[in-house]
């Protein structure tokens, strides 16, 4: 019987085991793969691993500092040996039963082990989904591909139809005969770039493709030519493919099922939910601890610290969490002289929204948040700012100023209430200005941390959603109706989610609801001679479907989500009630309606305009806040825009002018759209991607170069780059025209690679350098509000 069994030898597990070894505690470290730290082993060769957060001290018997992957892995390896850690590789744990004092761990080999405590540190990478056919355990079947150049002259079958499968297949096809096996009849859900690459490769016959096919079995043969035979079920019947190697890229099984099977409880069904843990990282199963990425801590140093802390805790040593000094510093400006724990408790008591959040999660939230003590009258944020953080009032009060100029009104929020949820959820500008009141203490939490909390704690999500709806109805329809009157109406409203291109409603259907677009945007189209012609686009913060509610009964147009969209919908009764409280509303809505009818009629008469709108929608402008367009009737191709971008951003251009599609003289270069709800922000371990008050989405210096954002951005505008060589001098370039080409991403250089993207020149006093440097005025930046106008007056009709 071991005192501690540790499952998963990532940074968290290794650090825990090392601490146990240091204390002389009987332990075992179980790792499914062939070596320690599988996740780090799978990073790209030579990757510079970063040690964020810099301010957090490291607590572990194992060393860790920023450096090259190979070096770090080697140091960990020698560290494990030196401390005498009992590491068992190739030991995948498939079941954990029992509780404190008596756990039974079952390995894949069938062997079982017993331990008093279990530390769960299996990360979130998950296990690659297996082929699940006879023979899938033969050595020719592999689930990862480190370096495609390792293979030459082989016949290789890649199974899968996602981005990873396509990227592997294309890279391998340079030196091998490659087939790709796709279960479906097309490649859906992959990036546009990969889609065109694979279709082209198939057309050129640089690789073969089996559509609508699945694997049946793998067998070894005697032939040296093709040592294995993969049998496929294809529409033409079963086919045997002789091959050397099979690479299956069919996704990973997320670890959640396994974790739940051990009795660990997740607070919500949301895929992004995190298990509930005590302040000592103990799960609801007593004696079973969860640390590292699996517990919601996505950085190496955090995982290592937790491993150390948990083992010390099990051994009965009181340890102050490593982040204690950071919190103490944050709280230093608060009066009252409370300890860190007391302050955290007081916060949870005073703010009802956070009352049900478990203390560990709350601690993490506050660690990422800032505590402000503004003077009375200070601006917290301005109306029309693009920031998306979330505020709670801990003490004192704030004044919210609704409306502008003459008819602005102020309402007061007191301790325990929150604000800022509107921009957080919709990605739109702030709809009101907020001023600090007397004795005001505010907690400002970044979007990512609140979204994480909403995904894990249902009560937080529902409270925020409810208030959002009330406030949205208030600003949208009934500015003068008090909150109490609106609350029951709002309770009847529905929250709807739509996928890209999904219809909210269709032309001719009976209309009974009005939709307030909460995030994303929708395209309005009508059927002309069997074709859907886009007439206009409606951005978040506006409503659609009002025509049917005001007398007309059937829908006069089809409305589809241009990007993934959320709406709040109101039925006819609720709407009638609103109008009863607010007689002016009818007139307002009729006004909007009149304008829409006119502009729809105009759009209809110019077919090109409608097509241009749908073209721009396909390029992601439906979720953009600001996008670079190039008028091809003016662009002379001098690339001064790229030069200017590179010159103002450390030598790397963040835009690729020539790439990207063109329609009716409007060219959309590969450049950031500054999305309302940026996809790139998802899964950024150090939360390095932020949005500035003017809307710029930018990447901070604490980027660890993991490449998640590069994969997540659907528009391919982020790339990983290190600092390139200097540019030629002004005189050299003026006299000899020698322009160093803007560096895309430099080769194998030792300098760490980080993510770079357009920051809309937020640090340049004159605004975007690309636009200012365009000699012909071909480059322009537009926001969604402007681009509809741009379409009707602009390039298309010239």
């Amino acid at each position, binding site marked *: 019987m071991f005192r501690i069994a540790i499952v998963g030898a990532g940074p968290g597990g290794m650090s825990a085991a090392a601490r146990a070894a240091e204390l002389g505690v009987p332990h075992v470290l179980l790792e499914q793969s062939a070596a320690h730290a599988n996740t780090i082993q799978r990073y790209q060769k030579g990757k510079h691993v970063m040690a964020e957060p810099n301010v957090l001290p490291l607590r572990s018997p194992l060393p860790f500092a920023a450096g090259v992957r190979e070096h770090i892995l080697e140091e960990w390896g020698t560290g494990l040996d030196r401390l005498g850690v009992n590491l068992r590789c190739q030991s995948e744990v498939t079941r954990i039963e029992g509780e404190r004092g008596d756990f039974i761990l079952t390995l894949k080999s069938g062997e079982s082990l017993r331990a008093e405590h279990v530390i769960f540190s299996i990360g979130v990478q998950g296990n690659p989904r297996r082929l699940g056919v006879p023979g899938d355990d033969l050595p020719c079947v592999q689930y990862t591909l480190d370096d495609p150049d390792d293979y030459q002259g082989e016949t290789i079958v890649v199974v899968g139809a996602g981005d990873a499968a396509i990227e592997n297949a294309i890279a391998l096809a340079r030196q091998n005969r490659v087939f790709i096996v796709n279960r479906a009849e097309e490649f859906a859900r992959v990036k546009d770039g990969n889609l065109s690459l694979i279709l082209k490769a198939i057309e050129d016959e640089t690789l073969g493709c089996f559509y609508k096919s699945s694997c049946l079995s793998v067998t070894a043969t005697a032939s040296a030519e093709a040592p294995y035979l993969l049998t496929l079920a294809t529409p033409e019947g079963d086919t045997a493919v002789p091959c050397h190697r099979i690479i299956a890229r069919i996704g990973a099984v997320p670890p959640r099922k396994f974790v739940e099977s051990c009795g660990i409880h997740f607070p919500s069904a949301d895929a992004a939910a995190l298990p509930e843990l005590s302040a000592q990282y103990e799960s609801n199963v007593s004696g079973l601890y969860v640390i590292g990425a699996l517990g919601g801590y996505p950085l190496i140093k955090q995982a290592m610290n937790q491993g150390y802390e948990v083992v010390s805790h099990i051994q009965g040593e009181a340890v102050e969490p490593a982040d204690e000094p950071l919190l103490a510093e944050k709280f230093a400006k608060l009066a009252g002289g409370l300890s860190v724990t007391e302050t955290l408790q007081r916060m949870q008591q005073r703010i009802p929204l956070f009352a049900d959040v478990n203390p560990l999660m709350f601690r993490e939230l506050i660690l990422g948040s800032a505590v402000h003590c503004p003077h009375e009258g200070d601006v917290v944020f301005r109306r029309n700012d693009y920031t998306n953080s979330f505020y709670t009032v801990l003490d004192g009060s704030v004044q919210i100023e609704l409306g502008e100029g003459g008819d602005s009104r102020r309402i007061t929020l007191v301790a325990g209430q929150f604000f800022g949820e509107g921009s957080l959820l919709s990605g739109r500008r702030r709809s009101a200005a907020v001023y600090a009141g007397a004795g005001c203490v505010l907690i400002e939490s970044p979007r990512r941390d609140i979204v994480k909390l909403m995904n894990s704690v249902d009560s937080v999500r529902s409270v925020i959603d409810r208030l959002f709806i009330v406030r949205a109805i208030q600003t949208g329809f009934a500015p003068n109706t008090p909150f109490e009157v609106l609350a029951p109406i709002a309770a009847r409203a529905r929250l709807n989610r739509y996928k890209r291109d999904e219809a909210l409603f269709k032309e001719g259907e009976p209309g009974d609801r009005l939709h307030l677009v909460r995030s994303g945007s929708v395209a309005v189209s009508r059927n002309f001679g069997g074709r859907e012609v886009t007439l206009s686009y409606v951005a978040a913060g506006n409503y659609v479907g009002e025509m049917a509610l005001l007398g007309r009964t059937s829908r006069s147009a089809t409305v589809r989500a241009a990007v993934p969209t959320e709406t709040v919908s109101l039925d006819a009764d609720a709407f009638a009630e609103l109008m009863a409280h607010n007689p002016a509303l009818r007139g307002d809505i009729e006004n909007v309606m009149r304008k829409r009818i006119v502009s729809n009629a105009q759009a209809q008469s110019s077919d090109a305009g409608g097509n241009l709108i749908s073209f721009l929608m396909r390029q992601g402008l439906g979720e953009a806040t600001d996008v670079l367009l190039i008028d091809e009737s003016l662009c002379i191709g001098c690339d001064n825009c790229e030069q200017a971008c590179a010159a103002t951003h450390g030598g790397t251009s963040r835009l690729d002018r020539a790439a990207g599609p063109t329609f009716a003289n409007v060219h959309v270069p590969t450049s950031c759209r500054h999305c309302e709800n940026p996809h790139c922000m998802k899964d950024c371990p150090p939360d390095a991607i932020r949005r500035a008050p003017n809307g710029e989405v930018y990447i901070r210096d604490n980027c660890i170069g993991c490449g998640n954002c590069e994969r997540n951005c659907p528009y391919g505008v982020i790339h990983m780059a290190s600092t390139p060589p200097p540019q030629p001098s002004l005189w050299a370039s003026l006299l000899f025209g020698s322009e160093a080409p803007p560096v895309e991403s430099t080769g194998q250089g030792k300098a760490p690679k980080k993510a770079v993207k357009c920051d809309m020149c937020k640090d340049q006093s004159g605004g975007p350098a690309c636009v200012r440097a365009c*000699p012909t005025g071909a480059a322009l930046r537009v926001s969604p509000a*402007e681009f509809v106008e741009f379409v009707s007056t*602009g390039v298309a009709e010239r």
Partner: protein
Amino acid sequence: MHQSVLDFERRRYLKIALALCAVSLVAYLWHDPRSPPNGGTWLGYTLGGLGAALILWLTALGVRKRTYTSTLGSLQGWVSAHVYLGLALLLVVSLHAGFQFGWNIHTLCYVLMVVVIASGLLGIVLYQRLPQQLSQNRAQQTSDQMLTELQELDERTRRVAANASPDEVLAIEANIAGTRIGGSTVAILSAQDRSTVRLPDGLAEAEANPGQARILEWLSARLSASDDAGRTRTLTDLVSLIGARRALLRRLQQDARLRGWLSVWLYVHVPVTFGLLGSLIAHVVSVFLYW
């Protein structure tokens, strides 16, 4: 909201340039020196000073263009002003010179200026006309993508040719090897196709092959003589691949031509500007020395 250099800010700089011309002209006509008009009068000095200042400022565009952090207006505004004031310069300096020319440093300076202005005029005309053609010709592709497509097309042609007879394989290879997209400046600017092909059964020398004409002719002769179904199919495929190649080459040559024209005038405009600056210094120094 969105306009060309010429329309910038409702042609603000056109109006300023016209005003400048009008004032200079009125002063010139009203001013009645004893001697014939020349640079030596007070008006001559004023116009000369103005002209020199304008030339220096026009040259400064090259510096502004590369000062990417500059907050001094947009480059488009600079170019708009550059164009109109650059044209006004012609009148200002002609008046300054009082239309007196000879074989001397002063007239050299004037001639160089005219060359710079004329090349600038050519440039701005090209800027108005060519971008649209450039964009249409590219049809959603970048130049690099077109080149890659050409390579891929050639790979495919080679694969099909593998079924053809050995001399046909040789001809296809020779056709690929003899392809020229660039070449001399003249060839680029006129989009001439200087491609050649050395056919295995033809003369020992390479034959001209503009628009893939020679290879198509050669292949179609073989195609019409073919009496084998398999061969016929291979040759038909080859002919249609060469047809696609011909269209792509044409687009690449057009692309090079248009891009060439968009920059070639600057190779006159900028160097002559520096010549102009040199002769301007000589002109000013000599005027003050021999005064």
